[in-house]
């Protein structure tokens, strides 16, 4: 065991030492500073940037025209009702969360008449956001995938993917985390062939993490035809699918279509996990409303898996927080509210499509080299521009426009004016800068506003 130094006022003593016989070196002295996660670092760099026209495009939230996250009037009304409802009491919920919430979250993904639900082989657990769902799923796999053998992976993640995913699996004790090629820079879309090639090489019993729709961070998804091919491969190779569905409804404006790949796998009798989030579709980011869905092959395994899930939850966060889940459950279990919510989601999608179209059009009018059609082919909250690392750095360092290093951005932030900003509309300016960045030509005409000085 590590030795601490004795208290003779020796090496490493600091000014704040409590000199009552305690050792002079902190017990934390060997703790290194953690690498900041890329998103935190990007945001920190943005915040310290003093340039007046700086723009941050890497946010994780859906913004309205004022550049704020917001909830719909319906959600606002329900929160008010919940606050004044005398029948609601602050009891501990179960470790699985609110039953009404898990029921509705499950039905939303699978469809009410899904065989798996009818046959009672579905487990739903309310979690702390999508991260909590992925973590819980990872813990279940680590502990219980193939009990007779010792399973430690591999888990396959798409390249690129959300930068916290690998860490979540590693935290659950799964070190063997690999990548399959997904985004093809040349095609500016999903490189299906390369993806299939990589997965063909994966060992049996691999867990494949798949984005059901609105892939983060590229916004590019597989077509239904490709999903069918992929599921055939997965069945043949005995892979286990772990779906991510963080924004159901916000890709196509249709909850069924967005969940289609999950429903496909369930209809084929596959076992699967699906991590869901209601942050984006309800604007309830701070409430951390997540759900882990587990579809089993046999109902006889349900109770055992359920008991193990409870055990994991108990030592992670014991029980989830209730308010956000209550709002979502209230909306989803009332037919009129459900319709109103779906329409709200649809209009969010329509606005998103508009932004993408404006950006593409601007770039076309500027004569920006390359094809920008992929911007409107992608869906959901994220968008992959296809800009390379140098171009992204140019945008950041020289133009004070902040994108993810992989060239991905959140189109909503293109239209929103950040608080305190002098500009109300960024799309024209962004288009100019993207264009300049792409071919580093100084003289470019901009149709709307005068050329900003370089």
């Amino acid at each position, binding site marked *: 065991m590590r030795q601490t130094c004795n208290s003779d006022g020796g090496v490493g003593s600091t000014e704040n030492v409590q000199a009552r016989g305690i050792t002079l070196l902190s017990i934390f002295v060997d703790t290194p500073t953690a690498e900041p996660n890329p998103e935190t670092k990007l945001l920190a760099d943005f915040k310290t940037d003093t340039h007046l026209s700086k723009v941050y495009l890497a946010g994780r939230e859906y913004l309205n025209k004022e550049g704020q996250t917001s909830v719909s009037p319906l959600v606002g009304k329900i929160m008010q009702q919940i606050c004044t409802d005398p029948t609601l009491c602050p009891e*501990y919920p179960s470790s699985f969360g609110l039953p009404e919430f898990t029921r509705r979250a499950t039905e939303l993904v699978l469809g009410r008449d899904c065989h798996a639900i009818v046959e009672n082989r579905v487990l739903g657990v309310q979690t702390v956001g999508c991260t909590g769902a992925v973590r819980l799923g990872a813990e279940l796999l680590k502990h219980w995938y193939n009990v007779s053998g010792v399973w430690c992976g591999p888990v396959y993640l798409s390249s690129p993917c959300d930068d916290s995913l690998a860490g979540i699996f590693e935290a659950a004790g799964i070190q063997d985390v690999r990548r399959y090629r997904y985004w093809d820079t040349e095609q500016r879309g999903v490189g299906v062939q390369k993806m299939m090639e990589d997965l063909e090489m994966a060992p049996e019993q691999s867990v494949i993490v798949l984005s059901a729709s609105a892939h983060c961070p590229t916004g590019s998804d597989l077509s239904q035809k490709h999903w069918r091919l992929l599921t055939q491969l997965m069945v043949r190779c005995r892979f286990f699918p772990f779906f991510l569905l963080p924004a159901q409804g916000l890709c196509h404006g249709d909850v069924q279509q967005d969940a289609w790949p999950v429903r496909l796998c369930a209809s084929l009798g596959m076992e699967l996990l699906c991590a869901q989030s209601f942050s984006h579709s309800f604007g309830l980011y701070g409430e951390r409303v997540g759900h882990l869905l587990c579809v089993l092959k046999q109902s006889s395994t349900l109770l055992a898996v359920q*008991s193990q899930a409870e055990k994991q939850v108990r030592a992670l966060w014991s029980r989830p927080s209730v308010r956000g889940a209550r709002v979502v459950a209230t909306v989803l279990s009332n037919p009129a509210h459900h319709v109103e919510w779906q329409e709200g989601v649809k209009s969010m999608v329509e606005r998103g499509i508009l932004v993408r179209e404006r950006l593409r059009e601007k770039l076309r009018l500027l004569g920006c080299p390359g094809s920008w059609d992929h911007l409107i082919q992608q869906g959901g909250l994220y968008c992959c521009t296809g800009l390379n690392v140098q171009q992204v750095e140019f945008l950041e360092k020289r133009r004070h426009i902040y994108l993810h290093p992989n060239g991905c951005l959140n189109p909503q932030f293109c239209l929103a004016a950040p608080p305190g900003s002098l500009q109300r509309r960024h799309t024209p300016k962004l288009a100019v800068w993207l264009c300049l960045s792409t071919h580093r030509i100084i003289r470019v005409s901009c149709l709307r506003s005068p050329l900003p000085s370089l």
Partner: protein
Amino acid sequence: MSIFAEVPQAPPVAVFKLTADFREDTHAQKVNLGVGAYRTDDCLPWVLPVVKKVEQMIVEDNSLNHEYLPILGLPELRSAASKVALGDDSPAIKDGRVGAVQALGGTGALRIGAEFLRRWYNGTNNTATPVYVSAPTWENHNAVFSDAGFKDIRPYHYWDGEKKGLDVTGIMDDLENAPEHSIFVLHACAHNPTGTDPTPDEWKTISEVMKRRKLFVFFDSAYQGFASGSLDKDAWAIRYFVSEGFELLCAQSFSKNFGLYNERVGNLTVVAQDKDNLARVLSQMEKIVRTTWSNPPSQGARIVAITLNNPDLFIEWKGNVKTMAESLRDQTHRHVPRHLHITQQIGMFSFTGLNPKQVQYMIKEKHVYLMASGRINMCGLTSKNIDYVAESIHETVSKVQ
């Protein structure tokens, strides 16, 4: 075949099962003395008046958004919560060497602390560092530290079943014999499940031994305010250890003292030797949080933060806490037979001293539900059921050995 086909059924979580069995029981006089939540005399959960007030304020405040909280949590909560534990005039806070991580209840705070210690305390990833938990202790302590990766979790003597009080000699022996750098989980006050705490002098002796033997202090503070009705008094042990120069972790829960069981408000207070150490520790904890729940929930955090940071609301809250503590004490002293020694215990729980067979009898024959350890929740006792419970205990002790 299902990949989960061979998954064994885990034993149910005892306290959840107890509540489930209680719910299914149709006996007219059934009593639930199991779960650890405050109840009024009508056996209902109590929404603190100050909480209701602040909830309404939040709902009406249009400037509050629903964005993600920072990974480490709401800053106003973290600093105010640490102040509640360490005191407004804490020199450690003034020195800038106190930080905190907002967590999902006390469980979440313990888990983040445990994950950090497993990775960075006593070497790197030293899963062999012994972790000592009291015998008995809250039944989830073991699971939290074990799931965080620690392989060697041991009991330290705490409850003397014959004396029906603290086993001081046992505690001291275990402290003296524990390997250096072992981690000790100490209940700050209102020990769960025994309701029996060390006296200030006993704490001083514990501190002296822990300092000499370089043992790590991890406080679990879930009941601040419930033991004596005074926040400051209940935090005496934590503050004493800090004044003695310990670097320590303190997992705080606001579930009980705010009645916010379902909003999961917790805080892991970190006391380091200096700012530099603190910063590095927090950076690693942030990384751990990112892979557990990413950002903590905002609703409960806001309620607690607003209350703690507003002088009038803070006073009102302290009054609410005192009300709960006094109501618990009233129930204990007025109604419980003295020979059960329970009156000397404090907080929400008491150890009846009933053995597992007697507990089974209580449940099956008398429909009075309590934990197998003999632990009862004092809040489950009301003016309406106290006679029945007392009679049941009397009958049980007479009939079952």
